[in-house]
């Protein structure tokens, strides 16, 4: 969450506050204010801090003059400025923040008029004066926030609100809260800020509120972003600008949920695995994504993205696939919607995943072999991206995991988040509590894991376990354990952990499971690894295969080999008998039958 310090007045104080690196500093250009900024100039401060001019029903000319004189990066409009007024400030390379004051209630419908005009809203407490009244309003009013435009939260915020802010952060109402705006509660006198208090506030916020979600620039900590060639910019930018808006539309939500229910078969059961639990002396629940239509979690994402593609007016769908699971899930939704479907698949994978290739063809998709590089998943992804470069207008690229340039990792995560959303209420029914002690998932690119973790990321009492494929062993040179073997780098448009040579060439991973055979990992998981929020484990081919067989025998469920990796952790990690461990059973083993047969000589 960003921090704005408003009502700056004195030169030395401005520079002192600037050393704390707030994201915005506010200067009030309103004579009636006790914090009226009347100095000739704003002193030199770091250009990462956005200088913000605060105005109250000022003349446009006056505003424009101040923008250029002080090189302002944002204007905050505190009066009754109409949409037309705000519009005239557009295209001036300046962020527009429109303020609304809230008392006990607020009619959010006025926001609509400003929708495509302002960059942010700011909510503060209604009082005698425009701003700076020092009281906090009831933040639960924001539960009804109907917009997806990010907002600043303001009004009487001080040190005593830290706990409330932490609580607020966890609530739905904070979803679009972009920044906190502070002023009078950090003052020695009007306009003179108390540095020590601000420091305390800032430290408390950043230490208590570690954010594991994506920020507005598309980063999870240092990971993420959109490192794409200019040729892809219009496509990715179109998606970035629209994905949250579209996902928030009632009509979209309705169709998405309906299809998940009637077509995919959601909610998927949360099954208490009694015999497995007995064996490992802890309580193990399996989230049965294997029971979804097409046999894995992948369909949650493809349903979401196909609806997105339709709303963006796209008529041609492309996808990459490794084992063919995502390819099948994509071909399925394309058949469902009657859209053209092209799936890129490495030449080598085509040979070893014949049944899924046949499925895709039956579903009407064209399967194009990726002949470049090592002819596996990474190269199929390259080919899909190249296709998108060549077809920039009518095509949507359905990425199959929480990877790729922003907004893909976040969008895929949000579509998969249904998994943890359901776990919450299902576990409440089983155990009387929403939070398990651990959530566990295997990680290829990280989509089933992202969905499993999503609603627990900010619940400190829930442990997160991420399971990667060690292949023949971490040290063997034949592995896909990115968090151990990877270094920070750029793959497929995203900065993340990535297996590569010292020279920055991307290397080929290896795993018996084609779905975990990816040299990178989604940026969210790179961040979870780096911050230590998640515990990463790596499981070899052999251990995974044994765990797959074990689940088949103990519970009558044949898992996908990807999932078998997650199941194998019980051999290595001991849980307490009273622990509740929820594991995402991401897929069923039908597609892997030949692998199991060959491995166990069945």
């Amino acid at each position, binding site marked *: 969450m960003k921090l704005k310090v408003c009502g700056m007045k004195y030169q030395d104080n401005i520079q002192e506050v600037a050393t704390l690196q707030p994201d915005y500093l506010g200067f009030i250009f309103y004579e009636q204010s006790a914090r009226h900024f009347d100095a000739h100039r704003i002193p030199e401060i770091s250009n990462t801090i956005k200088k913000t001019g605060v105005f109250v029903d000022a003349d446009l000319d006056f505003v424009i003059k101040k923008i250029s004189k002080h090189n302002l990066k944002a204007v905050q409009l505190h009066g009754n400025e109409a949409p037309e007024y705000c519009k005239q400030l557009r295209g001036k390379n300046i962020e527009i923040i429109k303020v609304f004051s809230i008392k006990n209630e607020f009619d959010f419908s006025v926001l609509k008029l400003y929708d495509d005009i302002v960059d942010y809203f700011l909510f503060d407490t209604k009082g005698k004066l425009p701003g700076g009244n020092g009281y906090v309003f009831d933040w639960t009013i924001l539960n009804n926030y109907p917009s997806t435009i990010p907002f600043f939260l303001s009004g009487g915020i001080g040190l005593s609100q830290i706990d409330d802010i932490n609580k607020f952060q966890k609530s739905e109402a904070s979803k679009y809260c972009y920044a906190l705006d502070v002023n009078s509660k950090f003052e020695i006198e009007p306009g003179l800020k108390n540095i020590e208090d601000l420091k305390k506030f800032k430290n408390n916020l950043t230490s208590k509120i570690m954010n594991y979600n994506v920020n507005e620039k598309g980063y999870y900590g240092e990971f993420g972003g959109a*490192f794409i060639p200019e040729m892809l910019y*219009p496509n990715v930018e179109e998606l970035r600008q629209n994905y949250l808006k579209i996902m928030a539309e009632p009509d979209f939500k309705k169709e998405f949920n309906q299809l998940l229910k009637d077509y995919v078969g959601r909610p998927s059961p949360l099954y208490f695995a009694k015999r497995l639990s007995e064996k490992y002396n802890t309580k193990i629940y399996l989230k049965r994504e294997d029971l979804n239509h097409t046999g894995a979690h992948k369909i949650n994402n493809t349903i979401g993205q196909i609806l997105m593609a339709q709303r963006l007016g796209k008529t041609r769908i492309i996808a990459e696939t490794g084992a063919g699971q995502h390819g099948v899930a994509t071909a399925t939704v394309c058949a469902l919607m009657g859209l053209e479907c092209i799936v890129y698949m490495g030449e080598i994978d085509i040979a070893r995943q014949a049944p899924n290739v046949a499925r895709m063809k039956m579903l009407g998709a064209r399967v194009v072999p990726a002949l470049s590089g090592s002819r596996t998943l*990474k190269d199929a992804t390259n080919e899909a*991206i190249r296709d998108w*470069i*060549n077809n920039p*207008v009518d095509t949507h690229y359905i990425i199959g995991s929480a990877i790729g340039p922003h907004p893909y990792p976040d969008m895929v995560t949000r579509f998969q988040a249904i998994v943890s959303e359901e776990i919450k209420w299902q576990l409440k029914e089983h155990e009387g509590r929403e939070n398990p002690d651990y959530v566990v998932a295997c990680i290829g690119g990280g989509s089933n894991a992202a969905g499993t973790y999503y609603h627990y990321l900010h619940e400190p009492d829930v442990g997160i376990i991420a399971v990667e494929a060690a292949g023949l062993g971490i040290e063997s040179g034949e592995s896909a354990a990115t968090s151990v073997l990877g270094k920070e780098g*750029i793959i497929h448009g995203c900065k993340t952990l990535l297996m590569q040579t010292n020279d920055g*060439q991307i290397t080929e991973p290896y795993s018996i499971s084609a779905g975990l055979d990816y040299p990178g990992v989604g940026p969210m998981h790179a961040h979870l690894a780096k911050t230590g929020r998640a515990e990463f484990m790596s499981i070899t081919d052999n251990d995974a295969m044994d765990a797959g067989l074990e689940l088949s025998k103990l519970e009558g469920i044949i898992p996908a080999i990807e999932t078998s990796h997650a199941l194998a952790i019980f051999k290595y990690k001991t849980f307490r008998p009273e622990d509740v461990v929820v594991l995402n059973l991401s897929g069923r083993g039908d597609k892997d039958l030949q692998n199991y047969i060959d491995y166990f000589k069945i």
Partner: protein
Amino acid sequence: MNRINQKLKEDKKLLSIYFTAGYPNIDDTTSIIQDLEKNGVDMIEIGLPFSDPLADGPTIQDSSTKALKNGMTTDVLFTQLKDIRKTVNIPLIIMGYFNPMFQYGIEAFCKKCQEIGIDGLIIPDLPVDVYHEEYQAIFEKYGLINVFLITPQTSDDRIRYIDSISNGFIYMVSSASTTGTQSGFGNEQTSYFKRIGKMNLNNPQIIGFGISNNQTFTQATQYAKGAIIGSAFVKHVTNEGIDTIGKFVDSICN
């Protein structure tokens, strides 16, 4: 003044040639550069090969894969180029993807470029805003010109923004495509060339992607300061080796 800016001042249409370093053979780099200069080429893009060149078509991909197999690395390239300024004066640009440079260290990479006498960089997957926020100061410190791409889909606003951050030329991608996929320019492209021409940008434009022969070169340079040939040159080298570079250049210019 940077050699690129000097060259752009000359009153002629410029021919820029791309080749993949380490291809066809690992040690061809310097002799290709010297030959290109000798045969009247105006500017050279030295391709630093990458395992996953997203913006490239099959020809450059294949040459990159081969170059990496031949043992090309960032260090090897820098060593090969160590004394290049003793023999040539032509503007030299390194074109490569961001990850190998990022691993080398952006500052270290830029510093090395300056030592060798590299004039500029083209990094297709380093977006303009990341460059502007994080790396521009470093590039400028080492006197390097960074060249950005625009495409027929790039909005006017964004073109102006890119123009404002550029200090050499703008690389105009001829059409929505990866490298090497075009076989000629139709109305759509010429009207795009004209549209950009009319914008009166601060930086001159050089057209690339799909320039392969005299006809496309002439067509492109009707609307721009110059043109870049990549895949066609790589193909020539694949088919005829590196001894007939003069013949290739002649076929473009005459």
